[in-house]
């Protein structure tokens, strides 16, 4: 089996007159932690959201585990089960308890029985230190807790890759740490991850590869040391000087 989990070929996305992605070709290998950075409007979120087809690409192909998921004949729901996604605004289900939030998809999609899903959810909650919140509703949690639950909800499906779309951008500063800590643990456990973020500390410390996007393209990518110490692209230099 190929070690390439996701292969993106010449991905383009056009919104009306606006070409947001102008042809992206890259891949994500198993175990990689790819951190995607770039100025706002650079297309990084659109790129990430294209990977599980929350955005339908205008052109290009995406292979996930060797299957062309951009082919309309592919059952995308089946593949999405293997691609966890964490959103900026958590998107927990407000009408369900924390436990129900986590067990809903595995049970409905018949990956587990109710009992198995509950057991798994409790294990995961224990791991993130939120077992006591199992019967609470999302509204009763802090932002950091919500985001950790959102991560757990994705993990309950046993995904092969986790996509993070600015997971700490909506958090109060004092809560960013707990979410990044959990993501670090995941990376440490070998989870394949693609992370759009502004947290450069996280990129330096955890990423196996950093990708700089600008104007709908990948302008530069590389290992974090090299990437941050010796940036080549002019726009990247400019970007880094502004935020570091």
């Amino acid at each position, binding site marked *: 089996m190929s070690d390439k989990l996701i292969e993106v070929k010449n991905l383009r996305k056009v919104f009306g007159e606006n070409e947001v992605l102008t042809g992206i070709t890259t891949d994500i290998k198993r175990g990689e932690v790819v951190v995607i950075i770039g100025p706002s409007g650079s297309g990084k979120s659109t790129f990430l959201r294209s990977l599980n087809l929350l955005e339908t690409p205008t052109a290009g192909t995406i292979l996930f585990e060797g299957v062309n998921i951009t082919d309309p004949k592919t059952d995308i729901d089946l593949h999405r089960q*293997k691609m966890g996604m964490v959103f900026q605004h958590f*998107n927990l289900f*407000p*009408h369900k308890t924390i436990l129900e939030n986590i067990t*809903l998809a595995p049970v*409905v999609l018949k990956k587990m029985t109710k009992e198995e899903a509950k057991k798994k959810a409790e294990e995961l909650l224990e791991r993130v230190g939120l077992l006591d919140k199992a019967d609470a509703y999302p509204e009763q949690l802090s932002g950091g807790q919500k985001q950790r639950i959102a991560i757990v909800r994705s993990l309950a499906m046993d995904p092969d890759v986790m996509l993070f779309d600015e997971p700490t951008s909506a958090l109060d500063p004092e809560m960013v740490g707990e979410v990044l800590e959990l993501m670090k643990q995941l990376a440490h456990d070998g989870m394949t991850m693609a992370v759009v973020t502004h947290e450069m500390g996280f990129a330096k410390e955890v990423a196996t590869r950093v990708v700089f996007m600008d104007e709908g393209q990948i302008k530069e990518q590389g290992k974090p040391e090299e990437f941050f110490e010796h940036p080549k692209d002019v726009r990247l230099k400019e970007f880094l000087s502004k935020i570091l």
Partner: protein
Amino acid sequence: MADFSAKFYANFIKDDRWLGLVTGLKVTIIVTIEALLLGVLIGFIIAIIRSYHDKTGKFKILNAVSRFYLTVIRGTPTMIQILIMYLVVFGSSSLDSIIIGGIAFGINSGAYVAEIIRSGIMSVPEGQTEAGRSLGLSYSQTMWLIIVPQAFKNVLPALVNEMIVLIKETAIIGYIGEQDLTKAAMIIQSRTFDAFMPLLAAAVIYLALVMLLTFFMNKLERRLRTNER
């Protein structure tokens, strides 16, 4: 006072006239329930078609049919609709007018319910759909398990409002020969030549019905709300 009790006797007690009001109330309730069930069913289907079309651009023909239905039903008087239903559509049918009335009111109410439910679906943030779909749930699973429960909660007050309107609107079923509460009051009036007593009685009963409904719906609403915060 003696005058009042004499009138009360003549309008309600004599010849068991109150029984007419009871039978009328039954008709009102039956027609309302028929219309409510049909209305919610139609409304729900239309709302789903319209939302699905808005989101994906599919269902073009069904969406056009839905919009035509909404325009016509909301643009013409209920009275005309019920008369057309009775005299034209079921003109040669022997179907009971209590059924015909239920169908006519149901089709009418469905148009309003459809827009209420659609606004409810639109009130649920897009992120909820994305969260559901990203977990691998299908469109309909996401709709049923995540969007509709939240939408329902958001539009419950508007739905109750529509139910109240519906209860009172059934008063015109008398025009197609059904003896509902209003018609029963008018029948008493035609016997006793006293309009005030029977109409007041009918009004009080409608009011009680609406208050009862509101009471239970408030309870339901509170129960649904306790889930959050």
